[in-house]
């Protein structure tokens, strides 16, 4: 079974590398966010697979925390990046919430 887990781990690592390339070269800031998001998902899977590879799959808590923190980081990025937003629309949304 180790061979299956290691192929899977290396495949996910390769996929992480590709996401990293996109995060490093941009070109727009959105590409970076996209790549970071995908990288986070890959990390979750990677931790899961490594847990099986080292024969302690009860460490999936960590993967769960990764999924959560990734989401929060992405929301933070979108929230605090200065996007040009229409002020009128913003005020309207303020009332709705």
């Amino acid at each position, binding site marked *: *079974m*180790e*061979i299956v887990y*290691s192929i899977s781990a290396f495949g996910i690592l390769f996929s992480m590398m590709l996401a990293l390339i996109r995060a490093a070269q941009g070109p727009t800031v959105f590409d970076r966010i996209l790549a970071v998001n995908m990288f986070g998902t890959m990390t979750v899977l990677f931790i899961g697979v490594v847990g099986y590879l*080292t*024969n*302690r799959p009860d*460490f999936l808590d960590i993967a769960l925390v990764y999924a959560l923190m990734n989401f929060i980081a992405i929301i933070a990025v979108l929230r605090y990046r200065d996007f040009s937003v229409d002020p009128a629309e913003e005020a309207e949304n303020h009332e709705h919430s």
Partner: protein
Amino acid sequence: MNFIIAASSATHDASTIGGHGTFHYILIMALMMTGIYLILSRSNMIKSIIGLNLFQVAVIMFYVSMGKVEPGTAPILMAEDVPHAEHDGHHDEAHDADSHDAPPAAHSPDPKKDVELGAHTLDHSKKVTVGPTTSKVSKITYSNPLPHVLMLTAIVVGVATTALALSLVVRINEHYGTIEEDELEDKGVLI
């Protein structure tokens, strides 16, 4: 395919001749170097703080890597090392005395035997023979928990101090209108 045996026996060979034994530490030191360079070379304060974080992660990794025992696993006792002890608060004196003459090492004294035992428990495909649960002679090797404890708290303290640095940056920006050390120097604030 039994990678754990291979890895651990390789380490045992290497420990005598100093081969790839300290390789991890060199990797970590190189990471520290990039952190130091980032701190010193950048005039932007946020970049310096990021560099400080990288440096901190490298130091933490150095500590944690010292706690690793090669055929080991995380220091959370597995089911066979957890005797179903009495939960009524009474403590068995005989049990206590028995545990005092237990082997003191985090691994059994004979490294060869240790490797074999570790392989037996960690090999995924093989059947694990559950040992006598009252005995303190464990077949499982655990990594050293002490560096983990120290570094766990260090990370949380690290984020608290990072926040302090960031709040200073915010105040500097409000007062002087810049977060570049070079520009502060030009203004005569920083000497």
